[in-house]
Structures are given as C-alpha cells and as structure tokens.
C-alpha cells in the first residue's frame, strides 16, 4: 500500500540510476559513445576492440562496484540512524570506517611489529576490516546502553576516529615506504582496479548485509516510537539489535575493506531519501535509500574520473565535497527532515 503510493518517484529514480550507470560506463579517460555502451550492454559487437576491452575489464566492474558501495553504505546509515535514534549516525561518523582503517592499518603497516605475515592477501584485509568495524560497533552499542544520551554516541565515534588516526601515525613511523604507500592509497578510497572476482566477493557481502537489513524493516518502524513502545508491541529488541549489528558490520566492513573508507554517503543518502519521500516508513525508505545510494555513488564516481582527463580524483574527496554541504543543509533545516 505504501509502496504504490510512491510509484512515480520510484520509477523516476530507477530510470535515473540506469542512466547514471550507462553514463558512468560511457565517460572516462576515453569517451565511448553512449549508444555503443547500450549496444555493449545488449551484448552486441562493438566497432572497436579496445572499447569492448575497456568496458568489460575496467568500467563495468567499477560501475557495479559503485552501485554496490553506494547502496550498501546508505542502507547501513539508515539502520544506524533509526537504531541509535540519532539523525547524525552513519558508518563513517560513528567510526565504523575508522575501525576498519585501524584493522587494515595494523595489518598493512604493523605487519613487522606484530609479526603478521599474510599481509598481501585480500582475505586478510577483508577480515581485518570486518573485525575492526564490528569491534567499534560493539563498543558503540555498549556505550549507548550505558548512556541514554544519543549525543555521547557521536562523541565516541569522534574519539575513535582521532584514536585511529593517532594510532596510524604511530604505525607509519615504524613502517616502510612501500607499506605506507599501500595504506595511503587504500585510505583514499578507490573503486577502480577491482577484478571480477573481487566484485563478486563484494556483491556477495553487500547482498547478504542488505538482506539482513530488509528483515528488520518492521521492528525498525516500531523503534521510531522509541525502545519502550517497540518492546510493548512485541518487538524482540535484542534479536533486532544483533541483526542490525551484523548487517552494519558486514556492509561497512566489506565495503571499506575492498574500496577503502568512503565518507558521507552513509550519512547523507538516508536523509535525502527521507526528504524526497516525506516518510519514515522503512519499507519505502529501504528501497529509496538503495536506489539513491547507487545513484549518488555512480554520479560521484563519474565526476571523480574527470571525463577526458588522464588522472582521477580520489572518490573519498568527491563524496566529502558533496556530502559535507548536504549534511550542513540538513542540520539547518532539521525540523523539516526528520
């Protein structure tokens, strides 16, 4: 009933996501005509062999990665905002990404100090990142149960970010130039250079995290009235809490592991969805956030590859450049949006 109500908006969004996806494939260092991209998607042969190669091995995995990263981080933000009753919550703000960074930093930079020697393996990075974000989330949940004040949760996230950066600077002091370079590149965020195998891995994680998130739409609606009301309406709070914790850590952890920490998407997109659909109904917001997350990440990625230029701006810089003003705008108009 609620979804039907918003049919037009969803159709427009779906169209925009498809357009952005094709545009993302078509633009880049080498511009490939839009029509040829459509031909490629339809499985037809392209006039130039190199175009086919660029699209299949480079741009398509990148565009799919953008799609997955955008939707995954935004869903994570939506979960956390309702669960912590805090409009400023998100995987980056609450320090989940910092937790991931800490995990990866220990692995990449501290391999000699802590004698970890499986540093080059992707699985190692993914595990470290997941553990890092899970650790921070558990910490936040612990604090949020002790202190009812939602503000203090943000402060914990903030403190953890500073702790991480301080810890990383100490580690950099003891690490080699090569290790440092690897970590720096990772921390700037990079959607490119994903092999198909890695894309598949990411897709698997994001899909399972998103599926878990979908399961808690109903209890999240009840939580909009606060924990007491939710409980009185039969919501199993601790079960819901664990599903949310696992879902968010899987999403934030896997995404951060494979493409690096991405700022602001998880925070800003759920708000854009709430602003656009004027609702708090999680069934509507879930799909809206999914689509808007994909859309914004595709757009950010298209901008970051600077059409026609031979170099790229780090994706994290783009999301921050656009995300920060949006968040400030939302803060100023806060009474209207949530």
């Amino acid at each position, binding site marked *: 009933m609620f979804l039907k109500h918003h049919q037009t908006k969803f159709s427009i969004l779906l169209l925009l996501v498809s357009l952005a996806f094709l545009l993302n494939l078509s633009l880049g260092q080498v511009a490939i005509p839009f029509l040829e991209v459509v031909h490629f998607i339809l499985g037809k042969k392209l006039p130039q062999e190199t175009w086919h190669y660029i699209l299949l091995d480079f741009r398509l995995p990148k565009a799919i990665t953008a799609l997955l990263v955008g939707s995954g981080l935004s869903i994570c933000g939506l979960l956390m905002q309702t669960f912590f009753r805090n409009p400023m919550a998100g995987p980056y703000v609450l320090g989940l990404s910092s937790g991931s960074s800490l995990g990866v930093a220990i692995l990449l930079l501290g391999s000699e100090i802590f004698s970890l020697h499986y540093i080059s393996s992707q699985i190692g990075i993914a595990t470290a990142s997941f553990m890092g974000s899970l650790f921070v989330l558990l910490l936040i949940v612990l604090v949020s149960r002790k202190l009812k004040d939602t503000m203090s949760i943000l402060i914990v996230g903030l403190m953890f970010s500073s702790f991480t950066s301080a810890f990383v600077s100490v580690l950099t002091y003891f690490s080699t130039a090569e290790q440092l370079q690897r970590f720096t590149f990772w921390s700037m965020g990079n959607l490119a250079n994903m092999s198909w195998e890695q894309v598949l891995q990411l897709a698997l994680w994001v899909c399972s995290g998103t599926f878990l998130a979908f399961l808690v739409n109903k209890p999240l609606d009840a939580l909009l009235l606060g924990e007491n009301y939710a409980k009185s309406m*039969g919501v199993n709070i601790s079960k819901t809490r664990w599903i949310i914790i696992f879902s968010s850590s899987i999403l934030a952890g896997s995404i951060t592991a494979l493409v690096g920490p991405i700022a602001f998407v998880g925070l800003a997109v759920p708000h854009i969805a709430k602003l656009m659909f004027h609702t708090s109904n999680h069934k509507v917001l879930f799909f809206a956030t999914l689509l808007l997350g994909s859309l914004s990440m595709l757009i950010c990625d298209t901008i970051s590859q600077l059409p026609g230029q031979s170099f790229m701006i780090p994706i994290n810089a783009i999301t921050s450049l656009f995300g920060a003003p949006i968040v400030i705008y939302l803060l100023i108009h806060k009474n209207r949006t949530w």
Partner: protein
Amino acid sequence: MVENDIILECKNLTIGYQNKTKKEIITQNINLQLRTEKLIGLVGVNGVGKSTFLRTITKMQNPLAGDIFVNNLSLNNMSSRVLSQQIASVFTDKLPQSQLTVYEIIALGRQPYTNWLGKLSPKDIEKVNWAIQQTQIQDIVDKKHNEISDGQLQKVMIARALAQDTSIVVLDEPTTHLDLYHKVSIVKLLKTLAHNTQKCIVLSTHDVDLAIQMCDDMIVMTPQHIYLDTPKNLIENNIFDTVFPKELISFNKRKGKFSFQ
C-alpha cells in the same frame, strides 16, 4: 453485585530493582486482582513505586519475587508477541524525531498481528479506523506527530493502544503536562473506553482529586502497603490520609478533597 472477570492478578509480588551487588525492594507482598470494564487510577507520592509497579505488570522489568497472571497465564512464560496482544502501554516517553503521521503511529499498534513485512490486512485497517473513531481524532490523521498539540498526541497514543486490541491498557501519567480541560477529557475518554470496550484500563496519575471523581477503582500506593478499592470505600477507610506526609496535606473526608495546612 456481579463481579467482572479477573484479567490481571498479582500474587505475593515483590517489585524493585536488582543489580549485580544488591536488591532494592520497593514494595513487598502485593496481592491484587484487576477486573475488566474498569478504569483504575494508581496514585501515590513521587518515588513510592508507581512506575516500577506498572513496568513490572507490563513485563518491562522483572519482579523480584511472586507471580503475575494475565488471563490466567503466567507473565513469566509469555512470549513478547503474545504479551503484546494482551497488554498495550502508553508511556511518558517523548517520541524520537521522525516523519510518522498520526495514522502511521496508530497503524503501528497492529504490529503484534501483522506478518514479518508489517503488511496491514483489511481487518487491521478496520481496527485502526475504529480506534481513530473511538478517540475522535479523524481531523488530524494525516498530520505529522510533531505538528499536533500535547493533548492531541496523548489521544493519538491512546488510539494506538486501542488498535493493539488488548484486554488491558496501561498508561503512565497520561495527564501530566496537560491543562485541566484536557486532563478531564482524557480521563473521561478512558472511562468511556473501559466501559464500552470491556477493557481494564490502568492509569497512574498525580491528579488524585480527578481520579477520585472519575475512576471506578483506585490503587493507592504507600511505602507500607498497597490498597485496591473503590474511591468511596477508600475515603471511608481513611486511606487517603496516608498518601501524603501529614504535616502539609490532609484529606478532607467531607469534601472528598485534599486540603493544605
């Protein structure tokens, strides 16, 4: 006189708080039977344990000893879903910020009955509309919850509890922050609902005069004892004299009101 059915029963109930190191007992040996079709007012001074009592009978916290039975079923072994079909609550909590409309809030009351997606069936929608009609808030159903007054919000939360379709409704201080007119209209609404829908409605309140005039039964909590009776009997037995410390406030039996020294 025909007695109504017993819907909630406390047997040797001890309420209070327990943490790792110590037990803090608030009231011991509570034995009460609450019946259907009654509006029951719960009064007592601040800190005597009204909220703790309400939180215990709604299973928001566990009793330190004793048993509570709802519809002859022990609260201990009741799943949260079954419990939510028996007892609905209205809390004093401020609602977190959201864009929920009045209609959506009331519809959330159907959660104990909906599937895992929360889809409303025709019967659910019927119940929601019935709750809206009972509380007479048809004019505001499309408004967001932060656009209405405190008095209206209280009615909305009562409608939500009605939509939950339970035999017991528990309200924690529903008349606080309201002016006299809205206080009376809320309590009057609750009384009508209790009588028309065969519910047992329990409300805690500091408006003792109002409760004496409007409630069918009253629970009076004092540090030593907990009494349940009709307001008339409670007055005759001088129970209200024990509610407040005597040096400032005493109960005037003739007027049925408190007077100040």
